[in-house]
């Protein structure tokens, strides 16, 4: 049963974005560009309300922590309600806080788009869906939010529906997400069958009842988490999702929605605590995704795709963290990642906007002088993602890597360290190629090794929005990319650890042979090595001098396995799409016309024949009918005569 309690502020936080969405959608033609301000205001108020709820979320109400608002009871075991505890508070803060900044930014980015009201309606709707997901106090509400964010993501990826590639990407994202939805649905079925309730509290109090089903539930939930959080092998939709507007990529496909998988696992930590196999599985997948995503980041030229693979890799870190049991560390990485990744995306959006929708970094270069503000903000975020001390990513990433060792997974620990080095390399590659050297926008694309089919720039925009409206959010996010990690300073006594002290139960931790200081040093060495490699290849005087030739050579020599993204898309094409088509052909050419239609045809023929047979009895002659009556009567007579003759 749900926890009793009432905290009406949650309604405000929860429903205000929905109201904003409805208002933007309904009055879009009247609001025009003001829709942006309306949508942003809705999110801002929700954010302020969340800040005001800070204390309520931490109040300890005996068995439960946090503010609770009951909604309604449906069937026994289906009590719906809203719950704001420290875990969901962090998510709501990021969703509304970073969400607000991105909304603000979008006012500038979407300034010239005619469908700006529709855009903000979708964005607000997405925030509402995401809040439904994280505020729900039961699995069904979570699943509803889960589905709604998938829908919002579909809308926003396909926002420019006149681009066939955007529509295809939206469809791909939606289909893969539905695979995950099915996994979660299955988990909910099992949980309800075994526990008799879908409330988080009831389920976690009865983990021991699950027995052998626990691992099944964990795997099913993880399928959902993997699909939403772009974990291997369900990651292929995320790079394609970059077809959406850049603020969408920042909000949904970097900061919030894709981390829903992390939230799910952190929320269901009692389940993972109970199953070492599930921890191993999730940790391994997370580590693998971190490594493979980082490797793919090396081979991309599209600025948003590099960031997309980087997102995938960083979420791999988070999943690895919450998977192995270092929940607090995984959530911390989500927290810092939201800032620096949003900053990176918005910064790249500024560049893309300035260069008239050019996204290929080979056609950038030398932007440091042209856009100094973007340069410094991006630098802060890049240093944060690489994990340079003093920047946010340093604190959380170290916690994740060291957490893997603490919970007894030395291999994942090693993968984490290597990935940190690769991350440093590809992020600085992006940074150097974009900002240093000479501007290459006027260079013939073929000289840069671009294939004829690759993206061509659009026509330049006629009017430009005020610059500050796009720069302010980027600046704020850059600041948080630096200071966001300071909450984590202090290890066990850090504010962060205290904040989550009542959320996650302390778990048995192995005391590793390698100390935390040594780990930090090793990671740093790897990171610096990565940066140096990037520097030597892209930022030395010699490299900058003949950048065009070098980039052309690199484009040609990129390993095919990376360019083709490990052939995942091809594998999916062959294993699922082609076999489905084969089945479709089997059904369409053989089964349907011959078996099913044949059965229908035979039924028609035989019933027609039967009808003709029966119709022949309907002579219309009264006397024939009379004869039948007499015949029936005669049968009765014979029957009774026999009975009377034999029995009596």
């Amino acid at each position, binding site marked *: 049963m749900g926890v009793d309690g009432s905290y009406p502020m949650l309604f405000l936080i929860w429903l205000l974005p929905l109201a904003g969405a409805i208002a933007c959608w309904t009055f879009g033609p009247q609001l025009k560009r003001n829709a942006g301000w309306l949508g942003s205001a809705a999110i801002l108020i929700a954010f302020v309300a969340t800040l005001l709820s800070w204390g309520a979320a931490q109040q300890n109400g005996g068995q439960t922590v946090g503010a609770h608002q009951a909604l309604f009871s449906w069937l026994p075991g289906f009590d719906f309600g809203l719950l704001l505890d420290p875990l969901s508070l962090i998510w709501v803060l990021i969703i509304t806080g970073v969400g607000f900044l991105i909304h603000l930014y979008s006012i500038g980015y979407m300034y010239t788009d005619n469908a700006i009201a529709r855009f903000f309606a979708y964005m607000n709707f997405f925030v509402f869906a995401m809040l439904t997901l994280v505020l729900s106090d039961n699995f069904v509400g979570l699943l509803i939010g889960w589905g709604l964010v998938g829908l919002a993501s579909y809308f926003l990826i396909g926002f420019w529906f006149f681009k066939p590639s955007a529509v295809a990407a939206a469809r791909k994202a939606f289909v893969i997400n539905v695979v995950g939805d099915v996994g979660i649905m299955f988990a909910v079925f099992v949980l309800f069958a075994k526990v008799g309730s879908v409330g988080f509290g009831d389920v976690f109090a009865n983990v021991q009842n699950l027995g052998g089903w626990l691992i099944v539930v964990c795997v099913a939930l993880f399928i959902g988490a993997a699909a939403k959080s772009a974990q291997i092998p369900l990651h292929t939709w995320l790079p394609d999702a970059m077809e959406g507007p850049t603020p969408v990529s920042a909000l949904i496909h970097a900061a919030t929605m894709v981390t829903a998988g992390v939230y799910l696992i952190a929320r269901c930590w009692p389940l993972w605590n109970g199953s070492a196999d599930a921890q191993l599985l999730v940790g391994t997948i997370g580590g693998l995704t971190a490594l493979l995503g980082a490797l793919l980041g090396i081979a991309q030229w599209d600025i948003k795709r590099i960031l997309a693979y980087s997102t995938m890799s960083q979420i791999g870190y988070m999943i690895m963290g919450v998977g192995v049991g270092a929940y607090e560390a995984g959530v911390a990485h989500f927290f810092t990642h939201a800032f620096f990744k949003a900053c990176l995306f918005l910064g790249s959006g500024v560049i893309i906007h300035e260069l008239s929708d050019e996204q290929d970094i080979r056609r950038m270069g030398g932007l440091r002088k042209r856009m100094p503000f973007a340069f410094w903000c991006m630098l802060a975020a890049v240093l944060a993602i690489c994990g340079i001390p003093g920047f946010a990513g340093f604190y959380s990433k170290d916690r994740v890597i060291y957490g893997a060792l603490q919970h007894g997974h030395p291999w994942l620990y090693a993968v984490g360290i290597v990935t940190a080095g690769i991350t440093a390399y590809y992020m600085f590659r992006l940074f150097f190629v974009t900002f240093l050297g000479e501007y290459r926008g006027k260079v013939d694309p073929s000289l840069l090794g671009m294939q004829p089919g690759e993206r061509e720039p659009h026509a330049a925009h006629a009017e430009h929005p005020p610059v500050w409206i796009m720069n302010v959010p980027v600046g704020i996010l850059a600041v948080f990319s630096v200071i966001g990690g300071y909450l984590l300073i202090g290890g066990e006594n850090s504010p962060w650890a205290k904040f989550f002290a009542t959320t996650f139960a302390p778990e048995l931790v192995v005391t590793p042979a390698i100390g935390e200081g040594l780990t930090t040093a090793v990671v740093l060495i790897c990171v610096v090595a990565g940066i140096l490699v990037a520097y030597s290849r892209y930022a030395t005087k010699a490299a900058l001098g003949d950048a065009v030739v070098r980039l052309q050579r690199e484009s040609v020599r990129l390993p095919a396995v990376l360019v083709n993204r490990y052939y995942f898309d091809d594998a999916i094409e062959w294993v699922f799409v082609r076999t489905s088509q084969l089945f479709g052909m089997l059904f369409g050419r053989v089964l349907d016309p011959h078996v099913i239609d044949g059965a229908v045809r035979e039924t028609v023929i035989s019933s027609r024949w039967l009808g003709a047979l029966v119709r022949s009895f309907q*002579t219309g*002659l009264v*006397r*024939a009918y009379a*004869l*039948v009556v*007499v*015949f029936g009567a*005669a*049968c009765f*007579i*014979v029957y*009774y*005569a*026999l009975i*009377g*003759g034999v029995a*009596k």
Partner: protein
Amino acid sequence: MILFWILGVVLVASAMWVVTAKKPIYSVVGLLAHFAALAIFYFSLSAEFLAVIQIIVYSGAILILFLFVIALLSSGTAAFATGPNKMPRAAIPAALVVLIALVFLVYGVSRTAFTAHAITVSATSAAGAVGTANVFGSVDDFGKALFTTNLLPFEITAFILMVAVIGVVLLAGDATPYVATKRRARAVERDMRDAILRAGEE
């Protein structure tokens, strides 16, 4: 007993006459003889009231109805039963089956024959009957049974007759179409008036 056989022969003969007569009017005559003989038969079975009813209702009412219809239909030029016999060939084996069933009937009845079994039951059941043995079948006896014990069936009889009357009126009563509502009735009247006016103009 002699009466039984005489009446039996008359009944069978008149029934055969009804069925085999060439014209329906002859059949009616045969049926009249049949009903008269039956009435006498009913008297012999102490069913006085029913004997009278037989004469009045059957001979008096139903046969007259038949006569009217025959008169009505014969006024036209159409002959009776001029077309080919359309009974299917299957009727012949079916009729054979019915005949065999008849044989079985006679056989079965003669086996059981309502002998000892029937008579023992007779004595007990008669004692509790509504009518008493000494006035059995009298009008008095029948009337009491009809209006006391069997009042409900009697009332149902009235209902059946009423339904029949309504049915006949609807089927054959009037050539104008049956009109369900006043509105439609007015529409029909208007149509007929228009038709008459048009006919007058032409």
